[in-house]
Every structure is written in structure tokens, then in C-alpha cells.
């Protein structure tokens, strides 16, 4: 028997490259940031640490989406909601840690509550002064929401476009709710003015370097978990459901439970991404729930390549790097470029960048020629 013998991690070259890159980043970036002075050519400036850390959070979010979209075929247009909820849980803790150092100097209430003339802390803010409790909420809140949402959606056999639409509605509804001041999450402004985390100043480069390394570690851990799931029989059942749901059901698989599992794990990963994102960017507001944000995640995954996990990571980093660059250089063109990128990926690289890699490295198979032929055919079709 040669089948199934390859190790779930060691058998995945792209994944190993990803893990090695993350390890290099996790050590190298802080070292080059803290260890070298600004005069050195190899010095990584502080802003770059924050920027790369942000990319890694998006990479984790993309990986979470790939788990449900790439494998189980569930196209979520609302994953930003789970990311934002994890972010809010972290933000609430950071707000509590401000203590009496806020503008109003109130030791019991965050500034925005004082501003709204609130007399006491709402019940759902209790416990968030405890770091451990807050971290639990980072995964529990998105996880429970995903579980309840999925329980109803998957049991009612809502699939395809209909499911995508209700995920979008979910994040939109949360956005409207979080915009309201009386929800107690800072309304329009969200949560901000954070001072420190576990006693470490958030402006301190050392703190930021640690947050960066933790983000890299989180992406690595999520990849290992995701890879363990997708390389197991469970992962093959998910793919089976994606490709022929009825067949899987008539083989005796309870499709709704499988989807629910992947969906909930994915939401928890997205929550962790949000929690790492908030201290690095210093703010969380209802804009993170906005539907366009969730659609962008889909584009990252599509560009990188679905169903590999590492492709999603690559896509998130590349697209966000492009976004950083072009929103600076050609701000009015960026959205057109993003749209164009998505269309081009769908037409020419249906398996994304990682799907196109074998073509480039394996000229023997003539895949490039095939791709070019497709390109020419599309051109002809347009001409005719």
C-alpha cells in the first residue's frame, strides 16, 4: 500500500515553503527591525513591521475562507463579520486596559460611555478586563455565531448563491447594529486609543515586533490545523460534498454536520485574525463588517488559488501589497484594478497563482502553450 502514507505536512511542498517563510519572517523581521539601526540598509522600519503584520492577519483570514470555500464549496461573502467580532473582543479588552488613562480619566468606563453619559458598564463588557477571558471570546463569539448560523442554514440545505447572499446579509446586519451607539461598542468610531497590551506599550517597537511574530505563528498554526483537517478523510468528505453533495449524502454522510464543522473552525480562525489585527492597527470600527471587505477576501483567495491553503496566504499578501502600493500611487484606479484582477484570474487562472506555478516550472508539459491557446481563443471569441 502506497496510498495515504505521505505525511499530512511533509507531503505538501507548497505548505512547507509557507511554513519556512513564516519562520524566517517571524524571526527575521523583528531582528532586522530591533537589531539594526535606521542607518543600516537592511533595517526594517517600524511602519513596515506593522504593515507586514497586517498582511499576515489578512493571510490568516484568507486561509480561513479557503477552508470553507476551497474545500467545502461554501462561498462566504460575510467572513469579515467573524474577523470583526474577533477584533471587537480584543478591542474590548484593550479598552479595559486603558483604565483611568482615558480622556475623561474614568477608571470604570471607557471614554465613549462617559461621553454618552452612561453610568455603569453594560453586562456584556464584564470579564473583558481579564485577558484570558477576552481571548476565549475571540474564538467563542465568532464560533458560536457561525455555529448557530450554520446550524439553520445547512440543515435547511441552503446552498450556492442563496447561502452567499445570506452570509452577506449577516455581515451587513451586524454592521448596522454596531454602528448604533446604544449597542455599547463605540458606535461609528468603534474602539480606539488603546494604550497597552498585558502591560506592554502598544507603541513600543518591541511590543509591535512580538505582535508581528505572533501573527506569523498564528498563520503557521492555522495552516497546520487546516492542513490536518483537509488531508484527513474529513477533508476528502468536504471536497466530496463540494463536488457532488447528493452523492455524499446518499453514501451516508450527514452533509450538514461536515459543513458546520468546517464553517465553525473557519469562523474561529477569522476571529483570531481580527484579534491580532486590532492591536497592530490600533482601531476596530463597524467598517470592518462592511460587505465589500468580505468580497475582497474572496478575491484574495481566488487570486492566490483555492483549495491549497497556502495559495490563499499568498493571494492575501500579494493583493494587499498591491493595494498598499496602488492606493498610494494611483488611488483612483485601485478599485478598477482589483475588479480587473478578479476577472483576469477567473478567465485565465481559474486555479489562481499557485495553480499556474506548475505551468511555469514544467515547460515539458507544454502547459504554457495550452494557457496561451486559451488566451487566444478568448480573444477570438471576443472578436467574433
Amino acid at each position, binding site marked *: *500500500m502506497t*496510498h*495515504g502514507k505521505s505525511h499530512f505536512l511533509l507531503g505538501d511542498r507548497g505548505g512547507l515553503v509557507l511554513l519556512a517563510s513564516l519562520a524566517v519572517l517571524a524571526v527575521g523581521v523583528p531582528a532586522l527591525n530591533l537589531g539594526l539601526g535606521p542607518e543600516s540598509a537592511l533595517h526594517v522600519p517600524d511602519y513596515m513591521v506593522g504593515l507586514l503584520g497586517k498582511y499576515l492577519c489578512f493571510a490568516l483570514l484568507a486561509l480561513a475562507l479557503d477552508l470553507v470555500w476551497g474545500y467545502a464549496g461554501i462561498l462566504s461573502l460575510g467572513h469579515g463579520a467573524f474577523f470583526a467580532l474577533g477584533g471587537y473582543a480584543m478591542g474590548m479588552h484593550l479598552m479595559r486596559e486603558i483604565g483611568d488613562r482615558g480622556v475623561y480619566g474614568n477608571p470604570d468606563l471607557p471614554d465613549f460611555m462617559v461621553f454618552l453619559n452612561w453610568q455603569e458598564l453594560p453586562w456584556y463588557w464584564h470579564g473583558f478586563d481579564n485577558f484570558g477571558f477576552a481571548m476565549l471570546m475571540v474564538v467563542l463569539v465568532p464560533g458560536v455565531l457561525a455555529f448557530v448560523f450554520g446550524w439553520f442554514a445547512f440543515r435547511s440545505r441552503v446552498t450556492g448563491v442563496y447561502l452567499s447572499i445570506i452570509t452577506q446579509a449577516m455581515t451587513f446586519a451586524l454592521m448596522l447594529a454596531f454602528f448604533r451607539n446604544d449597542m455599547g461598542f463605540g458606535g461609528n468610531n468603534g474602539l480606539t486609543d488603546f494604550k497597552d497590551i498585558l502591560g506592554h506599550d502598544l507603541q513600543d517597537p518591541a511590543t509591535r515586533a512580538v505582535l508581528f511574530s505572533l501573527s506569523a505563528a498564528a498563520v503557521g498554526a492555522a495552516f497546520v490545523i487546516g492542513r490536518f*483537517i483537509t488531508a*484527513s*478523510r*474529513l477533508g*476528502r*468528505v468536504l*471536497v*466530496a460534498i463540494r*463536488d*457532488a453533495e*447528493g*452523492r*455524499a*449524502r*446518499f*453514501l*451516508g*454522510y*450527514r*452533509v450538514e*454536520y*461536515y459543513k458546520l*464543522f468546517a464553517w465553525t473552525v473557519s469562523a474561529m480562525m477569522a476571529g483570531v485574525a481580527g484579534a491580532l489585527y486590532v492591536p497592530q492597527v490600533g482601531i476596530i470600527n463597524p467598517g470592518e463588517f462592511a460587505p465589500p471587505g468580505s468580497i475582497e477576501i474572496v478575491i484574495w483567495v481566488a487570486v492566490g488559488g483555492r483549495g491549497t491553503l497556502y495559495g490563499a496566504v499568498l493571494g492575501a499578501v500579494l493583493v494587499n501589497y498591491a493595494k498598499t502600493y496602488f492606493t498610494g500611487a494611483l488611488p483612483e484606479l485601485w478599485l478598477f484594478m482589483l475588479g480587473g484582477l478578479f476577472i483576469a484570474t477567473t478567465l485565465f487562472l481559474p486555479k489562481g497563482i499557485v495553480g499556474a506555478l506548475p505551468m511555469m516550472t514544467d515547460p515539458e508539459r507544454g502547459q504554457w502553450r495550452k494557457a496561451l491557446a486559451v488566451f487566444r481563443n478568448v480573444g477570438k471569441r471576443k472578436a467574433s
Partner: protein
Amino acid sequence: MTPIERDKIEAKDTVLYVDGVSVSFDGFKALNNLSLYVVAGELRAIIGPNGAGKTTMMDVVTGKTRPDEGLVFFQGDIDLTKLDEARIANLGIGRKFQKPTVFETQTVFENLELSLAGRRGVLESLFFKLSAEQGDRIDEMLDRIALAAQRDHLAGSLSHGQKQWLEIGMLLMQEPDVLLVDEPVAGMTDAETEQTAALLREIAGAHSVVVVEHDMEFVRALECRVTVLHEGSVLAEGSLEAVQNDQRVIEVYLGR
């Protein structure tokens, strides 16, 4: 349930008991007081013109469609009208779709592996390890459905006929008591059709097999009892000879 009905259900060897089943969709009666009894190890062919209710009958038995009225019992006392598809599949009723449906992006081996009889829980799947014995059983099945050479090919790369066989193989891996097989030879060459008939004849005995088919040559090759459906109920039942000479059957097939 009347006592007489109960006696019928408990009649020995009746694996699948369908009695007085009716299903309507928006006023259209897809099944109209349909009754069908399949005994253990039996091979049964079901024929009938389009819209006769063949596929709906399978939907009712496998839990996809709930009957408006009627009884559907499995192995005497299991009421299938109360169970869902996954439960019914795990109890031992396998179903092959009309259009061959396999997991195209997975290998032939993996398709059979996913179909292995066993527990289907989420966590069991997460920690599942294929035993050597199970691997051997899959390889035996590969020989039986003549796909050993395609073992590690993607199922999507198989020919139409090979996909049909793979799907039959997947059904068998479930070790069901009853196989419901919907048009297994559609799109097959004559030689493949013959081999498929031989395969199904071989399967029957250890399993009950219900085959829905249009191809009369194939039905003849099955050498089994034939049930003719028409407008949602049984029109005739017996040997192929007998039903082909049945005046009502001739009218239904040729009379319009």
C-alpha cells in the same frame, strides 16, 4: 397499520416493502398507489415510459421525497418514511444516480475509500486511518469493477462507462442490503452493457438489486423479474416474456 398489513411486512425475506405509496407534486401524481415488494437477494428490473415514476420511487425509498400516503418498510420493521437520506444509506440502501455521479477531483481509489462501510461521524473522519484490510478490500473492488489500472487516476478522467462502474463499486463498498440502480447502462457500448449485466447478476444474491432501465436488451440480459410502471403505479409484473406479451403493456408502449 392493520394487522393484515403488519403480517405482510413481517413476511419472511421481504427486504423492501412499498405499499400503496402516492406522491404528488403540484397536483401531478408522480406515484399513484404504488406497491412493490423486493425479497432478499432478488434482482428486479423496473421499466416504464418517461414519467412513469421510476425515479420518484427511488426518491421515496431513499428518503429524498416523503410520500403523501403509503408504507415504506425496510427489513420488516424499519419505517423509511421517517428517516433522512444519510440514515437510510447507513442502514443499507445504496443508490446509483441516473447521471453517473462520482467525486471527480478525487482518485478512483479515494472514491471507493470514501464509500467504505463504517461510521460516518465528523470526528471519526478527522482521525480516520485506513487499515490494511480495508485497503485490500478496495483493491479487490477495483479488480471487480475493472478499474485497477485507473486506481490513482482522477475519477473525472474516466470514461462515461467507467464512471458508471465506479459508482456501482462505491455502492458495493457500502455493503448495502439493497442497491437501487438508476439506468446503469446509459451511454455504454454493447460490450460494456453486457459486462454490466453480468456484474449486476453476480451482485444479486448477496444483495437485493433493483434496476431501473430503458434498454430492453439489457433487461433481457438481467434474466430477472420485471415490473412495469405506468403513471405512477404498477401496470404488470412477471418475466420479461410475460410482460412483453401483456396487452396493457403493449398499449402503453406502442399505443400512442
